[in-house]
């Protein structure tokens, strides 16, 4: 009884600490996180749709899901490069990282549009 209560309390305490820590992150990183969340959600909805109606134009399904996943991955890369706490990318200007992000996205979407059918 006491252990349950304590674990529940622990979970709540953990959750709160995470929330406060997250509030401290800079806004641009939060924007990128939001973007990643949006992309993953879109992918999930597409998977649910495929699960319900079948994968008939499989290439279309793949291109839809992979576009979401791909753009999410590129956004994560952008976040890594832009994060000031990341010592590895100290010398990389964030504009440069953003330019890479835009370019890669454009190439990804060209391929996705070709595969969409």
């Amino acid at each position: 009884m006491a252990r349950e209560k304590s674990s529940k309390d622990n979970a709540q305490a953990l959750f709160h600490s995470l929330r406060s820590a997250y509030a401290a992150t800079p806004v641009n990183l939060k924007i990128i996180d939001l973007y990643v969340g949006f992309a993953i959600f879109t992918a999930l909805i597409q998977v649910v749709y495929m699960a319900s109606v079948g994968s008939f134009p499989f290439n279309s399904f793949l291109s839809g899901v992979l576009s979401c996943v791909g753009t999410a991955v590129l956004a994560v890369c952008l976040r890594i490069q832009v994060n000031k706490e990341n010592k590895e990318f100290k010398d990389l200007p964030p504009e440069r990282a953003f330019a890479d992000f835009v370019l890669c996205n454009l190439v990804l979407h060209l391929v996705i549009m070709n595969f969409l059918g």
Partner: protein
Amino acid sequence: MAARPNSLHSCARQRLRRLQKEERISFTLIEMARSLAGFLVLLLVISICEAASLFQPISDSHRSAALELFTSDHGSFKSLEETYEALRTFQILGIEKKPDVTAAACRSISETVGSSSTPKDLFYALKANSIAQCKIHEKASKGIISSLNAAVGGASLLLDFYYSVGGLVLIKDQSSKADIHLADAEGVFRSVKAFSQSDGRWRYSSNNPESSAFAAGIALETLAGIVSLASSELDQSLISTLKNDISKLFDGIEKYDDGTLYFDDKLVDGHEYQGPLSTTSSVLRGLTAFAAATTGNINLPGDKILGLAKFFLGIGVPGDAKDFFYQVDALACLESNRVSVPLILSLSSAVLSLDKKDSLKVRVTTVLGSNAPPLTVKLVGAFSSDSKDASLLESQELKFDQGSGLHILNDLPKSIDVGSYTFVFEVVLQEPEDEKVYVMESQTKVPIFVTGIVKIENSEISILDSDLGSVESQSKLDLGGKNAVSLSANHLQKLRLSFQLTTPRGRAFKPHQAFLKLRHESKVEHIFVVGNSGKQFEIVLNFLGLVEKFFYLSGKYDMELTVGDAAMENSLLVAIGHIELDLPEAPEKAPRPPPQLVDPYSRYGPKAEITHIFRSPEKRPPQELSLAFLGLTILPLLGFLIGLLRLGVNMKNFPTKPVPATFAVLFHVGIGAVLLLYVFFWLKLDLFQTLKAVGFLGVFLVFVGHRTLSHLAAASAKLKSA
């Protein structure tokens, strides 16, 4: 009937042995007579050992074939040689001269004669003229004579001598001048003779060692021409050496199995090779020309001339114009010559019918079909083709019918039944002087086929019990008419069919075919041969033994009888009726009947039409569901935008100064343009157009983006340092 040479020896050997045995008996008159009879039998039988064949003289079929073969283009032929060959053929066969042919011939002759032509062209022109008889101008003929004389003087090859001497002989006959002579006849004679060889053949030139019989014929014709053109008598020794050469040439004559003789040259060079027909024709022409030009006899055995006549007649009607000319020209030489004229015995029909009471009609003519001198034809013997026994009839004379020119034997003797025979004829000339002029075969053997109606009697069919042999059912058949017998039997019974065959002369007859065919409803057939003993033909089918052969098939069988022979005029194939056979069941391992013929149209005919079944399209979800999920997909985007607003997104960092502002705007416009291009790519563009556009836009975007982002970077760096 045609025996090979070794069987001749065996026949002769057998008979010789018999003769020797007879000779040992002491010589009394009776025994002398017997040996003489035996000797006659020997002669007759030896003659049978050779082939019997039938030769026909020239007839109307030749004339119609000649008109077909010698076609001309509005009367003119391709060359003077062909013109001459056509004219000569028509002349020999008695075909009327067509005016356009004669006119065209005269035109080409006068053309050749008028201009300076080679001796060969002049020769053929004059030869054609001897038949067409066109007029030649005095001046032209003088020109011809002088050019031909010059040609004779300057000739070195055999063919040069041939054309020039031959031309002179022809112009001598055709022109009014009778005083055309060869200047040095003996010299020319000797120079032509120089081409001869010891084996009787001649060479074409002194350089070429090849000799041929064709050249021999040409040489003999040339020498005959020289003799006729000589102003004074030539040395007789030359003529007699030439007669020896002719005998030597004829020693080298070749022979076919049926007794025909011919000359042939060795095939050395394809160009020069003439073929047996033209070679033999050339030799014959030379021989007869030489015999006509010289006095005295040329002693050639008559059978050689007969062999040559048979060679030319045995060809029948040639299919080629040149072959036709050679044949007909040679036969014209044989028809009237000073050596000997062959006479040919021929029959209008070699198949005689006993029932129609056909009579044997024989005709004796020359090779071109003209009448022979008075003679009698005797039928000295008839031999059956399967047995080589003595003659079936005695020697009898055939009656001569003046009107038709035929020798007729009205009724065939009783000893001649249906079948194939060899009749032996002998021809005797009535006037003894004719024997010097004409030559005949001593005995002519002719194959004769006799047919007749064979009587079929006492035909009956019956079913017998196998063990007891007692007759269960029996019915008479009328094999000449219709029959519809209906029998039934089981496997323990026998079927018997019997009939009698008798020839018109009352003897037993064994036909080539005597079959009984049983055909089942399923078209399976079985054929049995009907055996005989003497006149009685009988077949017994024991069904007990035939059960397996019939594949255990019970049911209705149709019966058919075939009796046939070449000598039978009433060969028959009749349906007798049917028989219901009851056979036991087939065991497991019994052979199945062979598959019957399938109607070819059903097997190879068109098959059923196949309609293509397309793949059924995939099941698509209902449109409402798809639209619902489309809406659901938009939701995260809305969520993103709301989240951005919640975070306090602003545009404060947007450059305010005009130049960077435009670049920034252009940057966003560029990205928007690329995304719009992607939409168009999905809608209607193809990859290459898109890539081209992306290339241009990309370059623009890179440039603009670089400017904007470097401006932003500079701004943030300034802010940091400050």
